């Protein structure tokens, strides 16, 4: 007897909340679901990788950012996730060692507009920035940066990140850590409903060919 996905995800009798599972597989990014954006000058790419476990490759412009989210415009952005009760799970990898950053998480705003966010920030070596070679829980509401203490030698490995927005705080877990190394918590939340946002970007310098990140899984749901 075939079982439903619904029954595997939800306890019997539960009225499921919003969820999306993106496996980044196929010949192209699903642009019904995702909007693509870029800043800086040059050419960006959002392409499926022709390699085992490659998923989606996001390549920024050499001095800018490449972004996917649920916002085709400021007026039509879609934010179905709760700022006080939602989870984002991402499996990703950042490629370049220098001037590259990857930040993924929840955002209230269209990418060119002001707003609030809580993100997982994966940063390589820049120009001596205090966030260099760290994986951090970060937010601008209020300004928060909490290091997960992942070793700098592991920054560019594949990791699975779980970012959770709680009632008055947020947590970031790397590869299943529940405390200590690989875990961070901060008293920060966005101030209204959110959309998911995945970003590969240059930081404090130009990256020849653009900053590259692979994404092979993204799941977002309200708790």
């Amino acid at each position: 007897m075939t079982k439903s996905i619904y029954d595997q995800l939800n306890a019997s009798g539960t009225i499921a909340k919003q969820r999306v599972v993106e496996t980044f597989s196929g010949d192209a990014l699903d642009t019904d679901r995702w909007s693509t954006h870029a800043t800086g000058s040059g050419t960006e790419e959002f392409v499926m990788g022709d390699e085992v476990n490659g998923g989606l490759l996001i390549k920024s412009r050499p001095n800018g950012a490449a972004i996917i989210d649920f916002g085709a415009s400021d007026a039509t952005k879609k934010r179905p996730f709760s700022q006080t009760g939602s989870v984002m799970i991402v499996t990703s990898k950042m490629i370049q060692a220098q001037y590259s950053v990857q930040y993924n998480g929840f955002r209230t705003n269209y990418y060119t507009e002001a707003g609030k966010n809580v993100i997982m920030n994966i940063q390589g070596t820049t120009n001596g920035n205090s966030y260099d070679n760290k994986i951090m829980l970060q937010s601008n509401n209020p300004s928060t940066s909490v290091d997960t203490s992942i070793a700098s030698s592991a920054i560019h490995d594949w990791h699975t990140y779980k970012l959770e927005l709680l009632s008055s705080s947020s947590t970031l877990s790397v590869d299943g850590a529940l405390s200590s190394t690989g875990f961070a918590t901060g008293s920060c939340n966005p101030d209204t409903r959110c959309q998911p946002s995945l970003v590969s970007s240059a930081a404090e310098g130009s990256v020849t060919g653009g900053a590259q990140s692979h994404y092979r899984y993204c799941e977002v749901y309200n708790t």
Partner: protein
Amino acid sequence: MAYKQHFIEWFSGKSLPSYWTLTQIVSTCTATMADSVDGGMLFQTDSGAGSPSASLTFNNKRQYVATGFKFISVCKKNDDLLGIKGGMGSSTSVNPDHHAFMIEGTLASYKTLATKDGSTGTETASSIALSQDAFAYDIEGTTSNVTLGINGSIAVTKTTNRPTDPLQPYLYIQSRTSAAVKDYNVRYLECYNT
């Protein structure tokens, strides 16, 4: 065992996937993603007085077996003067010749299971009241009956006038009684052959 057809729609993203077909039946309705927490897909009537209505289907790509399917959805409506349907149907019309639908709102007095066997359509009401609350429902078609479950419990079992032709997922909205823009939010849909 060979894998059978199985479909999941999360109704999340910037726009409704293009594999859905919106069929206008009366006036003009829209199907867009909602900018609200747990809003999913917003199926919405216009404000006309002539019972604006529409269906959302796979444009008659019917891959599901009437005597061996399960359909699951989570939805809510925002107006008591609104009729909604969800389930499996054989066409894009308001009353497909073959169907197994959950109907709610002013189309019924309680959450109801409606089926049609090609010529005759009948309805069996549950004891679960109409409401504007979100609810999960499932419809299962077997060789002996069709069941409607509400929030995890079977509410109706129906043996008469069951569909026999191949089916597609089907959602329907109809504004009734008053003229206003009305909302039917659907945040999950799954269907598969059992």
